[in-house]
């Protein structure tokens, strides 16, 4: 008898794939030249230091080679990527003022509803500019700053300038240099000393224009003893030209502070998602990354935590789901650079229908990292033999007073587990669904409820017949 396999349905993309007519008010021409950078700078009314920074970054970009490892980026033709697209609106603080088609997009994505129900602040970026930004009065009273990056640069230069692209310098890699040259939009978050923000804030990035790039810059500063939960969502409709997302996230977490950074990334399947995220964690501070990578054609994303202060902690929980035509090269980097630092990395990946999912990790400890403790665990699930799943971790130690453990497993759903559940009265379909749900559960439980529901919808099981 021919066996039929369990089908795990692909992510339903209908709401994400909805596209609006490209009605942007201003666009740079495609490609990358000094003139284009100047144009962006003019358009954004950059202060001089920023204009210089952009031009410097362009120089670095032109000098740097493409990455010599990882996914194939030859489909990415920088000459065809439009680096700056301004939507036909100014930034609003009330959803009713946001142009109809743009609001409709965010309505369908559930952003205003989520804001109403469970968020303390929301930013929404459409193409290159933030179109909506709002923060609850309560947060304003506490002195929390949450605004678009351009406003922050104009109004809070003292806070922004010393930190902007210091953690991820343009020399870091080619796409960091590109980001430095053409960045636009993104959010600035500043939580003053001792302020505990109980309700999460969220930025949603939407790329509508075809053949464009999105290069938002996010800068988060959590001062001494403060805490906040920041949520980032990304999506874009599918066009037949390749889009590029090369964002940059820099997080400064001061002594005793904590930041939780959750991302659900569901870019369309023509997106090159080459994003850089980095956190600098001071004494007794804590960073927690929760990341779900479902979309994009190619992803290279490895949130990095630098545990700089004694007793700093890092938790990373990630899930990657690669379907047909996707090459998702994701992972995490943790550098223990101080005594008594700890990190826990937990990564899961599922690949199906020819999708490629790769865990690439770095776990490093410097000479100072006395008594550093770290544990890394990676699990990969292959749902068919057309797909690929690789685990490429690096475990590095430069002093003997560390305790580092790394383990990884790769494989299929175990027949024993299915058999056990069936012996308890479940059908095979139920058993399988339970196992896959259980597989992603550690990530799901770290997400806010509506995101967990969204993720579970993304990984919906469709079962038929017996399973092989």
């Amino acid at each position, binding site marked *: 008898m021919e066996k039929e396999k369990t089908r795990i349905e692909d992510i339903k993309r209908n709401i994400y794939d909805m596209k609006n007519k490209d009605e942007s008010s201003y666009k740079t021409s495609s490609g990358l030249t000094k003139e284009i950078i100047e144009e962006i700078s003019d358009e954004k009314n950059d202060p001089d230091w920023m204009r210089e920074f952009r031009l410097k970054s362009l120089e670095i970009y032109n000098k740097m080679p493409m990455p010599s490892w990882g996914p194939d980026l030859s489909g990415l033709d920088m000459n065809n990527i439009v680096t700056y697209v301004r939507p036909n609106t100014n930034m609003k603080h009330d959803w009713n003022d946001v142009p109809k088609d743009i609001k409709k997009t965010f309505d369908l994505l559930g952003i205003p509803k989520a804001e109403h129900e469970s968020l303390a602040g929301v930013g929404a970026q459409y193409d290159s500019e933030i179109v909506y930004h709002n923060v609850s009065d309560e947060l304003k009273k506490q002195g929390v700053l949450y605004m678009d990056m351009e406003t922050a640069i104009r109004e809070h230069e003292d806070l922004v300038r010393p930190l902007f692209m210091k953690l991820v310098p343009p020399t870091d890699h080619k796409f960091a240099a590109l980001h430095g040259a053409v960045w636009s939009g993104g959010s600035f978050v500043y939580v003053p000393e001792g302020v505990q923000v109980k309700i999460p804030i969220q930025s949603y990035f939407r790329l509508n224009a075809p053949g464009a790039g999105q290069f938002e810059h996010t800068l988060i500063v959590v001062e001494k003893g403060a805490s906040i939960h920041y949520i980032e969502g990304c999506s874009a409709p599918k066009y037949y030209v390749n889009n590029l997302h090369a964002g940059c996230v820099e997080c400064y977490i001061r002594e005793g502070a904590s930041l939780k950074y959750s991302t659900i990334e569901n870019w369309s399947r023509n997106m090159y998602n080459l994003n850089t995220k980095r956190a600098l964690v001071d004494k007794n501070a804590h960073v927690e990354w929760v990341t779900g990578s479902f979309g994009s054609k190619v992803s290279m994303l490895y949130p990095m935590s630098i545990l700089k202060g004694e007793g700093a902690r890092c938790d990373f929980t990630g899930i990657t789901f690669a379907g047909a035509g996707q090459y998702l090269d994701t992972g995490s980097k943790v550098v223990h650079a101080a005594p008594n630092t700890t990190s826990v990395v937990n990564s899961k990946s599922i690949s199906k229908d020819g999708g490629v999912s790769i865990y690439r990790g770095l776990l490093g400890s410097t000479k100072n990292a006395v008594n550093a403790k770290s544990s890394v665990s990676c699990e990969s699930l292959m749902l068919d033999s057309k797909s690929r799943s690789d685990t490429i971790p*690096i475990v590095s130690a430069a002093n003997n007073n560390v305790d580092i453990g790394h383990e*990884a*497993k790769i494989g299929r759903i175990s027949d024993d587990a299915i058999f056990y559940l069936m012996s308890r009265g479940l059908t095979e379909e139920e058993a399988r669904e339970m196992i896959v749900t259980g597989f992603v559960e550690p990530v799901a439980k770290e997400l806010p409820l509506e995101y967990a529901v969204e993720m579970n919808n993304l990984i919906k099981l469709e079962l038929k017949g017996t399973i092989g």
Partner: protein
Amino acid sequence: MIDNKENLSKRKNIISKLKDKKDFRLNEAYVPTWKHLGLNNFHIKDYNFPEINEYNADYMDFKAEDFKNVYLKDIREIDGKSLTGYSSFKDATSVSKDFVRLAENGFNSGVFLKIPENKILNSPIRLNFNLNSQNPSVIDQNIIVAGPNSKITLVVDYYTEDGDMEVFHNGLTKVFAGSGSEVNVVKVQRMNNRASHFDSNMAEVEDGAKVNWVTVEMGSKINVTNYNSDLKGQRSSADIYSAYLVDGDRKQDLYYTTNHFGKESTSNMIIEGVLKDRAKKVFKGNIDFKMGSSKSKGAQAEEVLLLDPTVKTDTIPMLLCQEEDVDGQHAASVGKIDENQLFYLMSRGFDYGEAEKLIIEARFSPIFDRVPAENLRKFLSEELRRRIVNE
């Protein structure tokens, strides 16, 4: 002995090219990662490639009566043409293509072994390479062709008695394990702190055959080894048992790869390491499940003990997978010696060094036990004492 002139001129040619090179990138990872970490290859700058002369001492040691029906020859006595049939392994990893070419065309020692079908050899053939002022360089090429259901064990020892002599070894061992055969290759490297040691090993494993690699790395200033096993056949298997001690200012780069092609193939890598003083070590291990290798299993575990705050260790355990129905695992643990164990042993009257040695020996012993030569096991234990307790 035919030391044919052709071989000699080839060797001269290859070596003169290597001498010009100075800059070597060895153990190049076939799945590279972040370049800035410098772990994609082992980079040696300003390396002066030595002059390679003949190796004139006896190195083969075996019981003649056991090897009666076995084709066993000093590789130098074989016509170069009859070796060309054994130069496959196009995609195998190695120390470097240059180094393999040197061993294939410029060897000065080695054996060629062909074991007939069903022949079980319980006594090993041993190769003992004593590198000294008369014979400061060994370029060995060893070829083992195991017929169906045969069994053979090769034990190779590279050693120096003189602590100051600068010596050089580059080797290549190729194993063709016919269906149902078992091939054991045991390599012990205990050369001095001025030695250079490069060793590439490759195996092609047919249906139901098994290759066991045992590698003990105790010495050399630069130690670069590479093991590549291609599990071609159904139910083929390959294991690596590896123990290393790196101390002083020595540098070591190990790269092990197991490629699963056949169905139900199995592999294991067990690596026990100790780093001391200012030692630097990189270990890369690949388990690669190729498409079609369904129901295969591969496991890898590396444990690294760090004895001093000045050591540096990098481990890249890769799992590559293009097949759904497989089971792959790897684990790595890095840390210092368990203080409770030390404390317990010291409360029983051992001094610090002895206690440390005991704990390390306990880790190494499952691997040392696989060295089928009592004198070698004794040497290893003494060597461990010398390096851990006395120094």
